[in-house]
């Protein structure tokens, strides 16, 4: 596999052919914020937090879905990108009902961490305050759509790691919701193996162990990577 040399934030970086800009940056110790990305899962480029500026492109490109090329010049942290990222995080908060003070994942939440990372002090947009359901029909887990950011990490973990595809998305735009099977209550989703990988993948408190209380949900997202790595080594 041949190497590619590119410049990220004025630093020369060496990357493997076919690697994404996100991977190359992380290998070089450069942090690009992400939300829908999870090591071990495929990339969907949905959250747009990893958008970077690439010389010669008039558009911003998602680092997770952009392959490195020789001589590529990338900027990951310009004022424009910082402003966009902050706006994206604010819009996520405005779209559903994220109340950290009483959330099961408070203190262990990727969205909360992101808000701190991008310097969100308040939300400039009007809250939509949608009426979202909570589904605790599953004996072990619950899904609170108030806290879902539609990153689809649960959908991909279920499909790609567990190989079941219980989770999917129904609806469009702000009306989109993650669903189990053909939009039945989770407890009635016969395909679900109750493995809990969706819980491990979830970045917020949307998917939680049933019976959890505030700040109690601590997950190890890297479990997904470990499973995929082990599987690669064995097969």
């Amino acid at each position: 596999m041949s190497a590619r040399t590119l410049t990220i934030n004025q630093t020369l970086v060496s990357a493997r052919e076919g690697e994404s800009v996100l991977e190359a940056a992380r290998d070089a110790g450069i942090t690009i914020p992400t939300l829908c990305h999870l090591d071990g899962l495929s990339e969907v480029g949905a959250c747009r937090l990893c958008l970077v500026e690439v010389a010669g492109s008039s558009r911003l490109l998602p680092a997770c879905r952009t392959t490195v090329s020789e001589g590529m010049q990338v900027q990951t942290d310009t004022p424009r990108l910082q402003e966009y990222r902050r706006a994206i995080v604010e819009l996520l908060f405005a779209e559903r009902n994220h109340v950290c003070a009483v959330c099961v994942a408070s203190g262990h939440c990727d969205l909360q961490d992101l808000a701190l990372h991008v310097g969100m002090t308040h939300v400039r947009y009007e809250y939509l305050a949608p009426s979202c359901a909570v589904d605790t029909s599953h004996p072990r887990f619950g899904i609170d759509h108030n806290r879902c950011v539609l990153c689809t990490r649960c959908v991909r973990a279920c499909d790609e790691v567990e190989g079941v595809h219980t989770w999917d998305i129904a609806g469009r735009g702000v009306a989109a919701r993650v669903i189990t099977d053909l939009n039945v209550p989770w407890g009635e989703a016969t395909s679900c193996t109750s493995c809990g990988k969706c819980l491990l993948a979830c970045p917020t408190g949307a998917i939680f162990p049933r019976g959890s209380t505030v700040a109690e949900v601590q997950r190890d997202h890297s479990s997904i990577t470990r499973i995929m790595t082990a599987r690669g080594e064995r097969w």
Partner: protein
Amino acid sequence: MSKTIIIDPVTRIEGHAKISIYLDDVGEVRTARFHVTEFRGFEQFCVGRPFWEMPAITARICGICPVSHILASARTGDALLAVAIPPAAEQLRRLMNLAQIVQSHALSFFHLSGPDLFMSIATEPGQRNVLGLAAQDPELVRSGIRLRQFGQDLIEALGGRKIHPAWAVPGGVRSGLDAATRTAFSARLPEALATTQVALARFKDLLEPLSAEVASYGRFASLFMGMVAPDGTWEHHGGNLRVVDAQGHILADNVSPDGYAGLFGEASEAWTYLKFPYYTPHGYPEGMYRVGPLARLNVCRSMGTPLADAELSEMRQRANGGPVTASFYYHYARLIEILAGLERIGQLLADGQLEAKNLRADAGVNRFEAVGCSEAPRGTLFHHYKVDEDGLITYVNLIIATGQNNLAMNRTVAQIAARYLRSDRLDHTLLNRVEAGIRAYDPCLSCSTHAVGQAAFELELIGADGTVVDRMVRGK
């Protein structure tokens, strides 16, 4: 022409309130109304949440007594799970509730009511606060602050934080208390006990010079309700309810918390968001009852610990043996409860089982409706939930101590006004007296209306024709 006096806002209470004093045609006080003017709607927006989250959500009703809501809610959750929680968890919850009683009572006595008790009634309102008292009597205030700190630190050691510790959960608690921490708190107990005993001695010295206030700051017959242990001793968590009348006759006894609806109704009035619970067999408003420190001491047989029992006997002797009907004695009762709390904390800290690993019972949803109850510092607190088969809340009713004292607080204001209002004009002295009378109940309005509160006080004087004759505003 009759008139109305309005005090708005009421200060040094937890919340925002307004008081109207109504005069009749000859200028005598006809009645008084204690208005709570804000509204939050907790009972509505909890609907749809998993009941396991309720301790943490309802804790947010109040920053002073979150522990009371956490414990009442967790207890309701235990009943929905239909479990008996591990014994160590039960003891740990009791320990936290005692710490809460100590810290909240210390706040009420030293920080909020201290200026009323130990400063002249004529003191200018700007000076009549804990800072003014600290300038006059620094050791009293310093020791009171440290006493409150003791309770708050113990809550933090148990729950990880002083305010809103999401620690008690349906089925038990999240963590125990190790030996080193228990030893450290035991070492702080003597100072806390000494502070309480000094405060008791100083309070008793006031009873003679303030005998007019004792007689007029809410001295009337009423019922009293509180929790007692099976043997009738003072209880704050896990006991059953007892109702006594002003002569000490037991009207209802050994009533489990889910029997509250059979005993108490709730009336509402258009002029306040605070409801009026009453003892149903006596009707509204004759079924007026009081809860809180004084009520708990009136319903119990004894305190169950030596120092507190000696003080209880003395208090009862001062009140000629029967139930104490003067609300001024709420302060007295509060100090005795601090003493009892500290003594019981000492006993619990010596208990090695608080380190147990098994602190949380696990179960599914086994009941669809439950009532949980705990003695909050201000009185008996009820949480009543209904859930669906997945454990999602469909109905919430919270019965708060301050609400249960609502009728008595109105009566107290009317009594003070009748005794001290000398004209159809308000002055700072009357304002101070009315506020001090209300403060004996240590009302928490953010809790009682589950409403957003700013400490503020408003007093209005209203004539017989409904016109506002005079008005004073303070705080805000």
